[in-house]
């Protein structure tokens, strides 16, 4: 199923914890060579999907492949995938130096120079215990471990969620520099679309473990429009214009539509959308009684 161009591919993937399904029937392909943002509301299965991709979880149903193999199938497969888990876990009792030593001893492709340079640049004290680092420093240390492993695919699960805006910017900047230098694929989950807009060139919106929309960020921005005009039934739009979300007052309708062509109807005031607007349009529940979500699929 997977081709060389697909770095992560899931088919009918499902994961159940005792009686609760955290992910059901998830089918998706993530192309190689991109920084892919994984967005979705809480409970959409983002963390479960990333844990499955990292091999921390085993699927209950379906299959998942990363870098052309089953996750965590062996040391070689593990070496191909880096993972910065949620809350960026590190060993509180081990120093920064110990963590670098750990990375060097447990990873055959370890890039010691990269690790040391990053730590120096960040100004981290090598003898500092990880438990005494700030949240941002700890996240940077975890990212350093993930980068110096020199993976083909780096998975990051909400890495900046707990960071202040400055630390968040520094973290993402560091990530972008490394991607530019070493050219590996990244899948990054976040519920902060503004952060994703800065770093991602590919987007995947997951709702109820289904892919709601996926595509290149600039293409998504170019094909989505906000239409504002006198109230009308969204079903009366011309073919080729798919309604993503709609809201109406008594006199006015506001629609988010996806279309490859231009908007010709002069009744509409056409507005541009930010990536956040596009994502929110896909996440927001439809207006009462409107089958717009069906249309969007």
């Amino acid at each position, binding site marked *: 199923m997977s081709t060389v161009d697909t770095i992560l591919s899931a088919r009918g993937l499902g994961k159940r914890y005792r009686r609760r399904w955290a992910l059901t029937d998830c089918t998706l392909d993530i192309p190689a060579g991109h920084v892919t943002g994984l967005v979705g509301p809480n409970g959409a299965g983002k963390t479960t999907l990333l*844990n499955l991709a*990292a*091999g*921390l*979880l*085993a699927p209950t149903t379906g299959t998942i492949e990363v870098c052309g193999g089953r996750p*965590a199938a*062996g*040391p*070689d497969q*593990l*070496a191909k*995938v*880096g*993972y910065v*888990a949620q*809350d960026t*876990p*590190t*060993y*509180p*009792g*081990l120093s920064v130096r*110990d963590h670098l*030593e*750990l*990375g060097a*001893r*447990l*990873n*055959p*492709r370890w890039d010691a120079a990269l690790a040391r340079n990053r730590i120096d640049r960040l100004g981290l004290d090598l003898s500092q215990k990880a438990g005494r680092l700030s949240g941002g420093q700890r996240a940077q240390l*975890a990212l350093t*471990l993930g980068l110096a*492993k020199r993976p083909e695919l780096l998975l990051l699960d909400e890495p900046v969620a707990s960071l202040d805006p400055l630390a968040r910017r520094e973290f993402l900047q560091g990530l972008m520099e490394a991607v530019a230098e070493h050219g590996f694929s990244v899948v990054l989950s976040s519920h902060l679309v503004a952060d994703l807009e800065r770093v991602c060139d590919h987007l995947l919106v997951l709702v109820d473990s289904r892919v709601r929309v996926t595509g290149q960020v600039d293409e998504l921005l170019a094909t989505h429009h906000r239409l504002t005009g006198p109230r009308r039934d969204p079903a009366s739009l011309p073919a080729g214009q798919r309604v993503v979300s709609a809201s109406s007052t008594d006199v006015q309708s506001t629609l988010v539509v996806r279309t490859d062509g231009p908007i010709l109807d002069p009744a509409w005031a056409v507005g541009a959308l930010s990536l956040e607007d596009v994502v929110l349009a896909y996440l927001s529940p439809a207006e009462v009684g409107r089958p717009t979500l069906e249309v969007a699929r």
Partner: protein
Amino acid sequence: MIWLSWRQLRIQAAAAAVGVAAAAIVLAVTGPRIAGLTGNIFDQLTNTDRWLYSAGIVVLAVAPALLGAFLGAPLVARELEAGTHRLAWTQSVTRGRWLATKLGLALVTAAATMGVLALAVTWWADPLDAAQSDTRGSLPSRITPVAFDMRGIVPVAYGVFAVALGVAVGAVVRRSVAAMAITLAVYVFVTVAVPIWVRPHLIPPVRQTVALGNDTIDGITMHGDGPTPPVTVSAHTVDPADWVLSNTTLDPSGRAIDRLPSWFEQCIPPPPSPAADQQRQAAAARGSLDACLKRLSDEGYRQQLVYQPASRFWSLQWAETGVFAVASGLLAWFSFWWVRRRVT
């Protein structure tokens, strides 16, 4: 992986090493005096010696429990609790190797700790264990439950078992403190249950029926203070160091009875009173007691002894070590299966 495991384990290992060294020094200082004693050495023991004998038992009883709780239980549980397993399991090392290294190192540490402690205590107590004496100065024989656990090789098996138990419990429970408590509770239960229900049957015990007489009688017990309290007798085996499992009187038809016939209760002399002339009273009592026992034997009463001879000490040590080794192996296998398949 060994580097990381050792880095995580070294504080506990250092604590164990300090404890072992302290115990070994104390025993090494006091041991030679006991080894040099001649004659009835039990009469020459000082209070310090007796205290050390008990302390050795306590230390060897507590050490495996501590190893299980502080070395075994947090081994996997703390990683799962802190989420650091997500860091460890996404390096280029499989989960199986991760656990094998950590568990292996912990087991070696436990075995070494218990091995040195047991060797030191066994060496220290060897002159006492080897001495022949009817009363043994009230110290237990080395084959009887409390002392048996603190000699030879079984302490090593206990240490290994406790750690394997702690790791398995920790992997399932996923909380360090809860895993420590459960490990302690289960371990204490096992150490109490094994001498009662398992060890006596590791080798079929010897059954022996002896005639009651002055040379075999061990004691006469009156149960209660009433006018005619029930009376039982107990006998002893040839070697007073044997581990007697049961000591019952059989009536002429061969059935076990829990009180002797009522005439015997009248026959035996009353307990000596402090006012009377002790020596004369004792001689008279002995004479009449012999007559009572003779009548008991003549009527067909016998004493049945079930016991493990003191000579089986090492056979029982090996057998029990085997049992704990198998149990530890099963727990380790379970931990691997659980961590690889179930921890998700």
